[in-house]
C-alpha cells in the first residue's frame, strides 16, 4: 500500500471527515483553512477561507452540499461545499440564548443531526463561562438560516467538551471531554440521561458505528473503549501503549483503528524512546491488536474511515494527512 500524502495544511490536523458517498474528504487543522480533497486520488479541490482561528471540527450534510465548521475564533460557519463560500456564520455576540446573551467562546465540536435539520455546537469554557452544548436549526433553504439557539445545556461538565454526537434517532447527544466522562443528554429536556465514567483521562474523540448502536471513545488514558449508545455500558476496552487521540470503527469489518502517540510536550518527560505514531488496528470483539500502519512523524490527531470501508485517512500533528487505500491482504485477515 502506498498512502497518499495530503500536504495542504501548515499546522497540525485536528479533524477529518468523509462525506456520505465517500468521494469527498474534509480536513480541519489548526491553520485557518478547512480543506476539501477528492478521497480517491487526494487531489485538493479547495479551501474554505474565512475562519480566523484553529478549526476544531466539521460536519457535512447527507447530500454533501453544506459543510459546517467550528473554530476557535468563536464562530461556527456554514459553507457551500462546491464553491467554498461561507453563507452563514453563527457569530459570537449575535447568538442569543438562555441564560447567556451570546456565545463568546471558541466552538469545539459541531455535529449535524440525522436528517440535517438541527446541529449541535459545543463551546469551550472561556472567561469563566463553562462549556456548553447548543442546538441550532439548520434551514433547508439557506436564506432562511437563523442564529436562533433552540436549546442549550451543559450543567455539570468540567472542562472542554471535545466531541458531541447525535445518538440514535436524535434522542440524545453524546458528549465526551476533558473530565473523561461520557454523557448522554436528553435532547428534549437538556438533562443528563446517562453517564459513563470508565475513562481515567480526557476523551479526545467519539465515533459512532454505522448503525449507531455503539460508539468508540478515544482517551488520553491510553485506551479506547466501546460503549453501547443506548445504555452507555462499556462493552470493550482496547489497550494501547500510547495516549489515544482518535478511534474509528470500520463500517464493513469488525475492526477498530486507533491513532495517537506520545504528546509532543510529553516526549521529554517520559521514558518512551519511540513516538508510537503509528495507527493500530484491533479486532473489535476480541480486543486484540491485528497490526499497525506507520508513516506519521507526529502524533495522529484525527482518523476517519471511508464509508465504503476500503480506505481510511489519518491526520497528524505533523500537518500531513495520509489516505490509506487498504490492500487486499487486509481484507483477508480473519
Amino acid at each position, binding site marked *: 500500500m*502506498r498512502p*497518499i500524502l495530503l*500536504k495542504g495544511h501548515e499546522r497540525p490536523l485536528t479533524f477529518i471527515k468523509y462525506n456520505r458517498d465517500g468521494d469527498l474528504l474534509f480536513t480541519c487543522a489548526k491553520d485557518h483553512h478547512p480543506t476539501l480533497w477528492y478521497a480517491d486520488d487526494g487531489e485538493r479541490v479547495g479551501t474554505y477561507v474565512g475562519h480566523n482561528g484553529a478549526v476544531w471540527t466539521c460536519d457535512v450534510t447527507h447530500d454533501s452540499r453544506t459543510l459546517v465548521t467550528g473554530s476557535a475564533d468563536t464562530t461556527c460557519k456554514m459553507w457551500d461545499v462546491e464553491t467554498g463560500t461561507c453563507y452563514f456564520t453563527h457569530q459570537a455576540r449575535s447568538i442569543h440564548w438562555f441564560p447567556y446573551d451570546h456565545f463568546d467562546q471558541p466552538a469545539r465540536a459541531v455535529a449535524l443531526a440525522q436528517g440535517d435539520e438541527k446541529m449541535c455546537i459545543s463551546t469551550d469554557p472561556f472567561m469563566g463561562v463553562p462549556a456548553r452544548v447548543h442546538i441550532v436549526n439548520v434551514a433547508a433553504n439557506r436564506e432562511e438560516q437563523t442564529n436562533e439557539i433552540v436549546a442549550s445545556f451543559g450543567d455539570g461538565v468540567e472542562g472542554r467538551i471535545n466531541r458531541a454526537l447525535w445518538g440514535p434517532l436524535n434522542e440524545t447527544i453524546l458528549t465526551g471531554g476533558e473530565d473523561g466522562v461520557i454523557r448522554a443528554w436528553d435532547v428534549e429536556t437538556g438533562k443528563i440521561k446517562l453517564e459513563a465514567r470508565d475513562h481515567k483521562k480526557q476523551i479526545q474523540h467519539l465515533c459512532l458505528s454505522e448503525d449507531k448502536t455503539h460508539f468508540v471513545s478515544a482517551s488520553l488514558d491510553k485506551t479506547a473503549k466501546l460503549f453501547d449508545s443506548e445504555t452507555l455500558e462499556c462493552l470493550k476496552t482496547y489497550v494501547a501503549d500510547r495516549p489515544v487521540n482518535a478511534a474509528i470503527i470500520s463500517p464493513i469489518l469488525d475492526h477498530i483503528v486507533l491513532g495517537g502517540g506520545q504528546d509532543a510536550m510529553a516526549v521529554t518527560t517520559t521514558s518512551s524512546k519511540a513516538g508510537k505514531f503509528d495507527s493500530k488496528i484491533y479486532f473489535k470483539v476480541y480486543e486484540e491488536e491485528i497490526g499497525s500502519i506507520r*508513516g506519521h512523524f507526529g502524533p495522529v490527531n484525527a482518523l476517519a474511515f471511508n464509508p465504503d470501508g476500503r480506505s481510511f485517512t489519518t491526520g497528524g500533528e505533523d500537518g500531513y494527512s495520509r489516505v490509506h487505500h*487498504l490492500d487486499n491482504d487486509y481484507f483477508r485477515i480473519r
Partner: protein
Amino acid sequence: MSGKMRWGDSADLDGSDDDFDVALPASQVFGPDANGVKTIIDYRIKEDGLKVRTVKKVRVNTVTKKVTKEMLARKKWAKFGDAQRYKPGDESMTAVSIEEIFLERHRTTPKSESEKSGDALAAMAGSNTSLLVCRICGKKGDHWTTKCPYKDLASMNTLGLGDAKPPGEDDGPGGASSGKGGYVPPSMRAGASGGQSMGDSMNRRRDENSVRVSNLSEDTREQDLQELFRPFGPVTRIYVAFNRETGESRGFAFVNFVNKDDANRAISKLDGYGYDNLILRVEWAAPREERK
C-alpha cells in the same frame, strides 16, 4: 539463431536492413487464470545483440466501484479557495508515498509457548553436556576436542593413511613447484600425488573401519548409537541417514571405529541385537564404489 546477432544477419533474413524485430516472435499474453494471474511474454534484443525473453506475471485485481451521478458531477468541480491558483490535476499538495507501507502484523506468541522455549534454552545452557562435543571420538560433555585421549589414534588413522611416503621426498606432479618452497595447494602437495586426489583420502577416511547399521528404528539418533557403540571402543564418526525432503530417518547408519578390532567385536556382538523392538543388522560397510 544462436549467439550474437549482427545487423547484417537480420538484413540477410528478410532482405531489408531496417529492423531487428522481424526475427523476434510476437509478444504473447496468457490469462488471467483462475488466480487472476496474467502472464506476458515479451521478446526484445538488447544493445549487445542478445535476444531477451521476458516473462512477466501480473496479478490482475479488479475493483468495482459504484459512482453516482452526483459523485461524477462533483469530480468536475472548479477549484476554490487557496487551490484556485493551481491548475486542475497539477497539485503539489498531494503526493503518493515513495515508501511502500505495510500493515505490520502484530504477533502475540502465547505466553506459555515463549516460556517453554526460554526454558529449553536455559536447560541447554545449564547442562553443558550437549554443547560440548568432541569432534574426534564424538563423546559428548566429557572433554574438548583438543583434550581428546584418542587424539593421536584418530589423527594417525584418518590422516596418514595408505601412502607410506613421507611428504617432501616426492617426484609427482607437484614436485617441481614444491622444490621452490612457495605455497603449494593441498591437491598438488606430495601426499596427494600418484593419482590419489583429496577426495579419495576423504572417502578412505569414511570407509575406514566403517560399520553399517541397518534396521534402525526411525527415532534413533546419533546420540543413541553413540551410547550403543561406545563400549566397544573409540568411535570417530557416526552418521545417521536422513531423508533430505521429509527429514525422516532412513533406517540405517554408519559408525566408524578407530580400531578394526573394536569394529569386529561390535559386529559380532550387535548383529542381531534387539534394539527398539527391531533386530539390528550390523555389518562391514561396503566401499562406496561397490555400492554404486
